[in-house]
């Protein structure tokens, strides 16, 4: 084993000599890091599960045809012809040339899956009961990569061929139907067909469970009178927070309308952002307090060790090496404190996850320690330790050895 260098040896011995002080400040750093690790993990995983729930029944990006605009029929002469231009009602339309655009979207950077959809309003009728629904024609193999509907099937199978239909659990209840029953669908466009229920799903949202009816693309195209067309294309992206950027990029490239989940859920995002900001503020204050703690311990240590510093200087230790001795102490406080703090934070998370649970008994969040959070905490704590030690270390290095020995 290579013996530790002089600076390490002196730093560790000084810390051991001031055991009480060293222990107290390490406890301080530990608590600080534990708070940061605990809070960050808690907020991150709560946010992740919230986003997960929101995105569980939603595409990351929905592509629609550009809105139809009212264009004044007369050439502009500089004088206003009409005081007001009425916005046009948006009819159900197909995306122009969708079969050419679709492969481009599928291959766009950041996009991991795309799924065409034909959707529009319809009525589901059984006997004398009639319910207003949203008819959604999809290709099941593609759609399952956008919304994991196949995981939400509670009865029957996830399959769409011929006149198969998948309906929500609430609609099934309302109409008194189950797997194998027939369902009549009529649309405002005059289409009508009888579908066979092959599966019942529960996406965790009563409203959607009541309104969604899935069929094949072809059935929906016929019923909604968009032969060969699709009314929207759903996209999934690899980094969910890139959705807005990808939307903006694709909008300018295609002229179509892109709605990212971030825009559709702007309020949720604002709330998450505020939560993140307050977490960041708490972290900053903890970091400042930890830094002040380390600095004050080392300032006292430098005063107490004046004589020893003077002797070391007299025996040939340079100013730089004395400085390193104190910087190492700061860094060590940071490192040890952050490792212990990581462990304590992990423990707190386990306790928290055991005590607080969802209504159905599952943990509110996964009490897993993100290695990245721990790594950031360690690196920050070491950097803070070094920074906090800088002032005392400079003081130590500048001590006049003759004075230190005389008055020490």
């Amino acid at each position, binding site marked *: 084993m290579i013996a530790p260098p002089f600076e390490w040896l002196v730093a560790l011995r000084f810390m051991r000599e001031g055991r009480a002080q060293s222990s107290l400040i390490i406890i301080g750093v530990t608590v600080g890091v534990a708070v940061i690790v605990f809070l960050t993990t808690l907020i991150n995983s709560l946010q992740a599960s919230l986003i997960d729930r929101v995105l569980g029944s939603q595409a990351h990006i929905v592509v629609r045809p550009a809105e139809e605009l009212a264009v004044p029929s007369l050439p502009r002469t500089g004088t206003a012809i009409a005081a007001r231009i009425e916005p046009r009602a948006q009819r159900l339309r197909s995306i122009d040339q969708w079969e050419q655009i679709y492969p481009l979207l599928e291959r766009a950077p950041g996009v991991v899956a795309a799924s065409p959809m034909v959707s529009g309003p319809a009525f589901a009728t059984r006997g004398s009961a009639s319910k207003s629904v949203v008819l959604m024609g999809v290709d099941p193999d593609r759609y399952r990569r956008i919304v994991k509907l196949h995981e939400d099937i509670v009865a029957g199978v996830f399959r769409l061929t011929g006149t198969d239909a998948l309906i929500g659990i609430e609609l099934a209840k309302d109409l008194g139907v189950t797997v194998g029953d027939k369902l009549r669908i009529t649309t405002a466009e005059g289409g009508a067909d009888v579908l066979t229920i092959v599966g019942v799903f529960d996406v965790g949202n009563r409203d959607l469970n009541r309104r969604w009816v899935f069929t094949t693309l072809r059935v929906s195209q016929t019923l909604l009178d968009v032969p060969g067309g699709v009314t929207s294309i759903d996209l999934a992206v690899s980094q969910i927070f890139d959705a807005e950027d990808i939307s903006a990029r694709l909008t300018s490239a295609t002229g179509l309308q892109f709605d990212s989940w971030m825009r559709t859920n702007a309020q949720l995002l604002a709330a998450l952002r505020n939560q993140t900001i307050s977490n960041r503020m708490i972290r900053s204050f903890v970091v400042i307090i930890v830094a002040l703690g380390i600095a004050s311990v080392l300032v006292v240590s430098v005063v107490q060790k004046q004589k020893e510093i003077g002797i070391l200087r007299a025996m*040939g230790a340079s100013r730089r090496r004395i400085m390193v001795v104190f910087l190492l102490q700061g860094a060590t406080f940071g490192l040890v404190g952050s490792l212990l703090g990581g462990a304590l934070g992990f423990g707190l998370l386990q306790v928290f996850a055991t005590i607080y649970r969802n209504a159905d008994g599952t943990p509110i969040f996964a009490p897993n320690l993100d290695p990245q959070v721990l790594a950031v905490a360690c690196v920050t704590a070491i950097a803070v330790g070094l920074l906090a030690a800088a002032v005392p270390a400079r003081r130590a290095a500048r001590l006049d050895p003759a004075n230190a020995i005389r008055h020490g």
Partner: protein
Amino acid sequence: MAEPVLRLDGVRKSYNVGTPVEAEVLHGIDLVIEPGEFVALIGPSGSGKSTLLHLVGLLERPSAGRIALTGRETTTLDEDALTGLRGRALGFIFQFHHLIPAFTAVENVYMPLMIERGHPDAAMRARAMELLARVGLEGHEHKWPAQLSGGQQQRVAIARALSFDPPLVLADEPTGNLDTHSADDVFALMREFNRERGITFLVVTHDPRLAQRCDRVVELLDGHVVRDERIRPGAPS
């Protein structure tokens, strides 16, 4: 003749320079010490002994004049070079031993070597053990300074000062806080190292009894050398 271990030419030292309380403590000291000499530096309190020792020890810089250590002019060296020279050429023995309490006796002894080398090794440990045995502290090697008596601590300090065979050892009242018996022991030990290894000593002392046992006595009074007398033959020339 060999290069003098120490040569002082017109060394002056003032404190609080440029202020109304400016005071010159040393008024032009000339002094030459040859290899192997054992020199006592005496004088009443405030005569400038300790200041002179700090100047020679490169812990402070003179206001004027030149100091050459083993033939090397020091007044032109920068801070780092001074620190390096101090580590290589000078051994220090202080009045209050000044061992480092966080290190054991043997670690204190090889501290100067460790500073020079950057890390401890087996050879320096072996040498430190040998020196501790030489100063009569066998069995005490791994004790902390606080577990040793005053006399034992001062022996550790002597071993430390000699750990790297420095050309010159500076001792500031090395027996000042010891009882007569321990003081004699410690003094005898320094003398032995001086005779056996030819190490040069400059010893500041209040004790006229000890001064009489040195080869040469330099007396300071109010910042002047008032006496420089070889009282004992046999110092190498």
